[in-house]
Structure formats: C-alpha cells, structure tokens
C-alpha cells in the first residue's frame, strides 16, 4: 500500500522501489510523480506510455534491474473503466537486492504495437513471440517475430476476448482415417 505523500504525489512504501521509480522519472524528464503508480499487496507498478517505454526499460536495465521475470499482456476489451484495449506488463527484478517492480504499458487497436525489449533482455525473446501469437501485439525491433504456439497458418489470436473458448471450428477440420485405408 502506498503511504505518505510528497508534493502532492504518493510514494511507494518500499524505499528501494521508490528510489528506482524517482530515478526513472528523472531519466525520462518527467516531474516527480509524473508517472502513474499504484501498489497492491507486494506488487509495485508504474505506468509508462508506449512512446517512452523503450528508454524507460533501458534506464531500468542500467539501474540494476537485470532479471526480466515476466512479460505478458491481457486484453481489456469490456473490462470496467479500461482506457486501452491491451495492457502489457514487464516484471523486473534486481538480482543482487531482490527489489521487484512492475512496469505497465498499453497498446490499442487497430495495430497494437510496442517497442521490443530484445536488445535489453534476451529473455524477452520468446515471451514477446508468445504475446504476439496469442494476443496479436507487434513488437517492433524483434528480429524473429513469428507465431510460437499456434500453427503458422492460424489467423486469429486466441487470448483475445472476442475469440471464443471453443474456437471457430478449426479443431474439427482434419482428414478422418478409416481402418481399411491405413
């Protein structure tokens, strides 16, 4: 939970997280508290707009957040009070201090697009491909952005909310084999 305010913006309860986020704000050239932040349980989140995401991630990497724990996204189509369709999260950790922070960003239709973190953390390689495959968010700068889980010819993005759980009937389209011909 956030506690205390300085100059009108909330601070993170964890001083290590607070110093990282204020350093990030300084590096991006936004005033203190300029980035939207929130906390829930032990998760500390800071929102960065897509245009600034690449430089923000680069700064965080240089500030010691060397482990990319998770990169994924969700489709917020129809979610209450959602402003953007896709929300993307990067969970980062400093392996020497154990500080953990979540960077949030967003993307929108018709062509959801974000900068790739491939050059910053190599671990983001397959995670970005998975997000591209299941949710259809493009990552510019990724050297090999192909489908990873679904077949190459698949046209939809199954984790989008407008894709039905039981699919569009693709699972029934195969050649049945009879016993006498096999």
């Amino acid at each position, binding site marked *: 939970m956030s506690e205390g305010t300085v100059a009108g913006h909330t601070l993170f309860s964890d001083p290590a997280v607070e110093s990282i986020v204020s350093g990030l704000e300084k590096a991006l050239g936004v005033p203190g508290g300029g980035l939207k932040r929130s906390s829930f349980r032990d998760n500390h989140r800071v929102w960065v707009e897509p245009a600034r995401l690449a430089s923000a991630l680069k700064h965080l990497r240089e500030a010691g957040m060397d482990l990319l724990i998770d990169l994924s996204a969700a489709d917020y189509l129809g979610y209450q009070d959602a402003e953007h369709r896709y929300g993307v999260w990067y969970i980062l950790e400093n392996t020497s201090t154990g500080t953990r922070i979540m960077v949030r960003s967003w993307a929108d239709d018709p062509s959801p697009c974000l900068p790739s973190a491939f050059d910053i953390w190599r671990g983001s390689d397959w995670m970005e491909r998975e997000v591209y495959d299941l949710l259809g968010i493009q990552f510019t700068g990724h050297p090999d952005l192909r489908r990873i889980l679904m077949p190459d010819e*698949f046209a939809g993005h199954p984790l989008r909310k407008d894709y039905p759980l039981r699919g569009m009937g693709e699972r029934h389209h195969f050649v049945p084999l009879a016993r006498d011909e096999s």
Partner: protein
Amino acid sequence: MEVSLPEDGFLVTKLDEVANWCRKNSLWPMAFATACCGIEVMATGASRHDIARFGAEAFRFSPRQCDLMIVAGRVVMKMLPVLQRIWMQMPEPKWCISMGACASSGGVFDTYAVVQGIDRFLPVDVYIPGCPPRPEQLIQAVLDLQDKVQKTGTFNAREFKSRTRPEGPRPLAMQLDMADQMVAPANYRTATRSWSVVPEVGNHAGESGR
C-alpha cells in the same frame, strides 16, 4: 466362420489362431506420449508395474517397428497430422489404444486447440478412462486388446476390410465457409497444410448420435 468358403476352412482358422496367439503375446507398443499419461506409461514400464509380465515391454519409438500405438495424452491441432502420419507409418497388423480422457474425448480441455477425441480421425481399438489412468488400467487395456486380437484377428488381416470408416463418432462438422476457416486443414497424405486441400467433412452430426 463360414465353413463353406475355402479361405475360412479348417486350415485357415487354425492358422488364424496360431497367428493371433503369436501376435497377442508379442505386442510392441509405441508410446505416443504427449502429456501426463505419458508419465504413467513410463510408470507402467518401470519396476513396480512392469508391463514385461504381459509381453508388451518392448517399447520402440520408431513406428516402423511397432504394432500397438498407445496415444497417451491430449492431441492438439498442431499434433494431429503428426499422429496420423505416424499411424500410417506403422506396418500391419496394428492396433491403437486411446489412453486417458484427453485422448478419448478431449477431457477437461474443451478448448480451441484440443482435438475432441482422436477416434474422430483415427481408428481406435481400446479406450482407457481416467485422468490419467492408473498403470493397472493400462495393463488391463493391453490384456483386453490381447483378448480382442485372439478372438477377432485373422492372419491376413481380413477383419480390417469390413471396417471402412472410423468407428468413433464422426467430427462435429461445423459447416464453415472457406473465408471463415482460420486454419487450413492439415493433410496427412501430403504432410502439408494448404488452402487448396479441403477434406470432405460431411454433416455427420445427425448420424453420430452425439
């Protein structure tokens, strides 16, 4: 057995019996292990359950050497053409055990990617329920299959001639237009997926009884 036909005469039926006895006691399984059930297949082969007691311990991972395919685990869209291709590569006579709920009916995974029962696309001889089935159940299935081989087998595979279509329920064909088909259907014959080859999936929903 008709006595009047020369193929089904005394000699032939005795020959059938001998061939069946040989075949049933030397089943060479190919564990097509995809998921959890594959671990139970391994447990069946390991020391406690020891499938060697029933003459079916010679697991081979090359389909060309096997006559029993144990499909253990769910089969998804990307995997089904591979499964069919491997089935085609196995020499006759061959049998198939569908192990576990997922292989038999899709199980808990009623989702966009999982094939709802391999028997829609492959001939299956024995089904095993369970998620995953216990090793004892797999052993029982092998015994049942041995029984089936002994009772219905013929030395020149005449019994397969009458089975001209998959015995399981037919695919729940959704009549989709080409434009609505998101996945080009895979074809085991060409080992390709292409828009030009479309399987003839008739409307079997009425006759399948499902």
